[in-house]
């Protein structure tokens, strides 16, 4: 697979603070790659270095084959960016804002098509200040997309949005992948990363502590599938002892942990063979569990590590 971003030992230091501590990762063409972690983990600093908005202290980074320290213009012409806390000229309409970016890139795109694809065509004549949070982000993505870039950087694209708007934005991001774009995403929402990403890097305190496909991360660090039998008894406990990796008996019943979905399904079938008096539920491992396992804590709604 073709690499569109190559990062080697990238380090960014501000006086006494190390924001990015010698990280390395690659991004492949056509994938959605996520940098996931709590606030101040170094996600934005990393993407802003790749967007040529910050200078690295040491290490190397190339974007689409161009060095970020020496080929800023070539990179900026080929990428699309939606910065963190995205904002634009509030009293200009959606169309005017998108047209402005097109004029800066000196391109003449089919703006109607861009706006229709992102679902903001109906709001084209409304001022940016009058839009909802979700619509504003979609306008931001339209502006990033107007130059038809190969690679898009979306920095915290759904932060602060309500669940409905967040899911609508996810659909837009999935559409970008279908359009053949490579997307680099930063987020502190584990659910979002899991829902959208092909691959992800978990970053905490400027260091990448794990990176791989989302499936591999979950299978390696997610802690397995948990089958909980609410009214489990000795028979269930004996069954799980034979089938599960770990078995825990507690007040709410018996919980067995299984490495794969197939093993969990097999255990579930075995429980029902013992009788239909049992109440069973399965908890699938998630990126939340991965992060918890790797970082020793969870990230709350505001992005803080708790």
């Amino acid at each position, binding site marked *: 697979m073709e690499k569109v971003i190559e990062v080697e030992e990238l380090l960014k230091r501000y006086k006494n603070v190390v924001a990015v501590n010698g990280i390395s990762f690659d991004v492949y063409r056509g994938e959605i790659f996520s940098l996931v972690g709590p606030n101040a983990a170094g996600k934005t600093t990393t993407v*802003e270095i790749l*967007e*040529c*908005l*910050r*200078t690295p202290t040491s290490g190397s980074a190339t974007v689409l084959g161009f060095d970020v320290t020496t080929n*800023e*213009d070539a990179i*900026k*012409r080929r990428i699309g*960016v939606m*910065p963190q*806390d*995205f*904002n*634009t*000229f*509030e*009293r*200009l309409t959606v169309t*005017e804002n998108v047209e*402005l*970016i097109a*004029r*800066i*890139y*000196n391109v003449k795109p089919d703006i109607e098509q861009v706006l229709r694809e992102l679902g903001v065509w109906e709001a084209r004549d409304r*001022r940016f200040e009058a839009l909802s949070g979700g619509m504003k982000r979609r306008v931001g993505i339209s*502006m990033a997309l107007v130059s038809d870039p190969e690679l898009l950087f979306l920095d915290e694209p759904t932060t602060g949005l309500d669940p409905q708007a967040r899911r609508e934005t996810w659909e837009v991001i999935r559409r970008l992948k279908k359009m053949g774009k490579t997307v680099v995403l930063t987020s502190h929402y584990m659910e979002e990363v899991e829902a959208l990403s092909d691959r992800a890097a978990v970053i905490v305190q400027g260091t990448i502590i794990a990176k791989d496909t989302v499936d591999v991360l979950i299978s390696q660090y997610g802690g397995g599938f948990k089958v909980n039998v609410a009214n489990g008894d000795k028979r269930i406990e004996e069954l799980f002892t034979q089938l599960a990796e770990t078995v825990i008996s507690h007040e709410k019943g018996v919980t067995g942990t299984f490495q794969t979905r197939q093993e969990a399904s097999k255990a579930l079938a075995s429980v029902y063979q013992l009788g239909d008096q049992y109440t069973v539920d399965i908890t699938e491992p998630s990126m939340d569990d991965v992060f918890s396992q790797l970082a020793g804590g969870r990230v709350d709604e505001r992005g803080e590590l708790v």
Partner: protein
Amino acid sequence: MKRVYAIFSALLKSWLRSKTGIFFSFLFPVMLLIIFSTVFGGGGSSQYVLFVQNFDVQDDAPTNLSTAFIGALEATDTFDIRHLDTTVDIKTYVRENPSFSFRYRVLQIPHGFEEKSLSKSMSVRIDVVMDTLTIMEQQYAAYMEEADLQQVEKGKALLTRLEGTLPTEPPVILLVTDEQDMAAPALTGIIYGVANSFSNNLIGTEDIVTITGEPLEQRTLKVADYFLPGFIAAFIMTNGIIGATSTISEYRRDGQVKRMAATPLPKISWILGNILQQTVLAFILTGVMIILGWVIFGVRLIPNVYALLLILTGAVAFCSVGMVLGGVIKDVEAANGAGNAIAFPMMFLSGAFWPIEQMPDYLQIVAKFLPLHYFHDGLLQIMVYKNPGQSLTGFVVLGTFAVVFILVALKVTKWKEL
């Protein structure tokens, strides 16, 4: 250039859609024009209050000569004469009757003013006759008979004897003024002039040198016309330094600058686009100010091509200063404060609203270091005195400012964080 225009048109559209922004942009210069034109050129009296205590009284009535002197002061149209009883102690009166609308100035005409004036004038007349006779003896003795010369000598002896009998003390008028009274030196000069002319009349001579008045500008200009160049210059300066500083720091806070920096837009295009927008804004508002001046105050000045060029240079120069401040100061409130802290003192110290000759010497030196001084002076030379040659300094100073500050803005505007 296309990108500069793209930024310029986006910024201008954005400004034109801000109702409150437009309102306050217009309000400020219009308020200044109204206030200053009303205060300095309105229908108010331009006379100065002068209290007079006339101690020269005979038979309970002021003497003719003291009355005539007061009449001569009134005839200048400079003074609003108010008579004060001679029993009043000035210091007590001032303390008990404080005034915020005028400064106390009290003229005391001493007792014996008429008598001393007449005897002094007689003494002066005798001196003049004596002088004339002596010169006649020296220069024309060869043409005179001996008997005539003796008659002249007799006459001189008689005049000398007569002069010896006259009181020699001159009448002295006392003028009491407030130390803080800025107008006192000028008013003292006027009173001195009246006294001098009065003295000449007493000895029967005429004022040899006379003064006649004529307006400096042959065209009929109104007070607002003279203020207009200062207003235009001050307004463009505040618009640039306060307006541009505030706008740029807000764009930076709100993320527009980062959004632009993430595109291939060169930093210089962003800077020039902003300066162009602020400059066009300055032109629009200047036009509006002149139209309002024309409608409300009957202003007759119309900027010619030189004035427009100087306005353009000034707008670019001061917007560049705003770009630098907005680029250096990260906090919006601090940037606004800095803009105000620079613009307002400059507005009042540069002499845009009053001649710098009225300011203390050290402030006059300060004014010479302020670019606004050269801006309004240049506009005054072009628009009022029709003397564009005298505005060259303004062009040079503002042009240099513009180039230097655009270069500094290019340096301090962060397109990339280190």
